[in-house]
Each structure stands twice: as C-alpha cells, then as structure tokens.
C-alpha cells in the first residue's frame, strides 16, 4: 500500500483508464464509446509521459543557457507518435459513426443489433 501511495500518479492513470473502459463497455451510444476510447488513450499517454519525468528536471531542450537534469526525451517522442495514431483512429471512427447513422438512423448499439 505504501508503494502504491508513492506511485499515486500512476494509480490515478489506472483509475482514468478504467473509467474509459467502463464507458466503452457500459454505454450504448457509439459517440460515448468513442469518448471512452479517447479517455483510455489519454490515460496511457499521461502514464508514459509521467514515467519520463525526473526530479527537478526541465524539458529536454539542450543548448546554451540550459542545464540539467533533463526529462527523458524518448517517452515524449513516443507519445507524440501515439497522439497522431489516436487522432487517426478518432477521425476514422467518427466517419464510420456518421455512415452508420446515415444507413441505420440510430447510434445506440442495442438498437443496431436489431436493425440489419
């Protein structure tokens, strides 16, 4: 328990991740499911970026007048890649949702089961 309290930042991201997962499973509206997916993505990005933080560190921009310690640049670059992928997923999912609404006239997953 003491170890978890020391990593309370990470625990908060686990809670955020579970909130997103709950929305995806429990909510029927497709837009809300997509929002839940975005919350999960945000939790993962925050988790990875937080792991790159260092005590008293600054942004990893070296150069004249800058002194360390610097945060690890690798998680930042990875999360930048991840954000672009998340944007792509969101855009494609929104388009599929638009097309589903145009074809079926509803966004509720339980109603879509009946509408073939």
């Amino acid at each position, binding site marked *: 328990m003491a*170890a*978890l309290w*020391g*990593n309370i*930042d*990470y*625990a908060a*991201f*686990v*809670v955020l*991740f*579970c909130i997103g*997962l*709950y929305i995806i*499973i*429990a909510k029927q509206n497709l837009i809300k499911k997509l929002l839940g997916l975005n919350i999960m993505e945000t939790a993962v990005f925050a988790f990875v970026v*937080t*792991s*790159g*933080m*260092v*005590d008293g*560190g600054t*942004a*990893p*921009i*070296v*150069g004249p007048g800058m002194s*360390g*310690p*610097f945060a*690890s*640049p*690798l*998680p*930042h*670059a990875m999360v*930048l*890649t991840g*954000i*672009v*992928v998340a*944007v*792509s*997923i969101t*855009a*494609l999912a*929104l*388009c*599929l949702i*638009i*097309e589903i*609404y*145009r074809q079926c006239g509803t966004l509720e997953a339980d109603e879509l089961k009946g509408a073939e």
Partner: protein
Amino acid sequence: MRKSLVAITIAAAAVPMLIGVAGLPRPGDPSAAVHTHVAARYIAEGAHETGADNLVTGVLLNYRGFDTFGEVMIIFAALAAVMAVLPRGATGLPGAGAASGIPISPIVAFIIRLTAPFIAAFGAFVIFKGHVSPGGGFQGGVILGALLMMLSLVLGRGVDRPLIPARSARWLQAAAPLAFFAVGVLGLGLTGAVLGYPAEPGRELLRELMMIFLEIGIGVGGGAIILGLFLETRGE
C-alpha cells in the same frame, strides 16, 4: 444490474494494474530504467549527434526517423480511409443543415479574418524553430490545420469553391510522406543509409536544412490532412 456487473468486473481488472504500478519505480526517480537506458545517451550526445537542440525533435527525425515515417503514413492512410468510407458529394448528417447553407455571424467572420495572420505566423514559427525550441512539425501542423478549419468557415464555402483547389490539396495532403521520401533518398545518396544525415563537420547546415525540410513537410501535410478530415466529415 448489467452496469454494476461491468463496474465490478472492471474494478477486479484494476487490481492487478494497481499492483503492477505499485511495483514501478517512483515517478521522477533518476535511477529508473527510462533515464538510464538509451535516454542518457540521447541527452548527453543527442544535440551533437542529431544537430537538434530540441531532443524530442532529434529523436523523432533522426534516431527514430523510421517511426515517424510510419506515423505520417498512418495519418495519410486515415485520410484515405475516411475518403473511402464517406461517399463523395453527400451532405452531412440528415437534419444537421447543409454546411454551406447557414450564413456565419459577421462578428465571427471578422474575428477569424483578424486573427488568421497571427495564427499562421505562430504556426510557421513552431514549424521552423521546432528543432531548437519547443515545437515541431506535428505541433505546427495542428496549428495550421486549426487555422484552415476556421478559415473554411468563412472562405471558400461549398463544393464548387473549396478553400484549397482539389488538385493542389491532393499534393499538400501527401506532403509529409513525399518529404520523407525525398530526404530519405537524399540521405541514401549522401551517407549510404535511408534517412541518414551527414554528420561530419562542415555539413551541419545541410543536416539542419534536411530537418527543416522534413518539418515543413510534416507541418504542411498535417495541416492539409486535418483540413481534409474536417471537410470530409462535414460532407464536402
């Protein structure tokens, strides 16, 4: 009943995750693996090896250039998939009102026209200085994309008067993969490795120009793709 079942299941799934994060090194611990593995070398040698003071840009364009190449291909593929899913020429959601039918408030139009040059200058600054200061191609591209989305509300509305003509829009949307292709081939010729950068003294300027070219490609391509996604979902 069903929702409480879902909540209980997810709470049960959270327990192993919480146990897992409890075993991780404390955030900010300088001796954690994330700071002692490759990151230590990136911080010590990155600015010298990549020529980018902003180490995130250095990692993105130089150490992990192939990753970024795949990344721009992903967002380009997302646009292609969106264009394939949504039929051309169909108006947006039924009942949502045609995008070009409702006139925009003159106050909003004036504010958008007033702020547009400053946003464009900020976006260009973020792109061009991305290798030495906070910023980079993707960040500047998002700023440019947001600006283009705003401008598409007041300028060039409708299918027959697009903000960017369709022929040049195709090339702008492919700018990022094309820039990576050009720099990759140039690096192949100069150093014998795809996406290689000349590292010997005296050619730092060429290396910097290659990075700025990549940043411009990513920024312009990203902005054009974001505008394309916006217009596609709006039904134009």
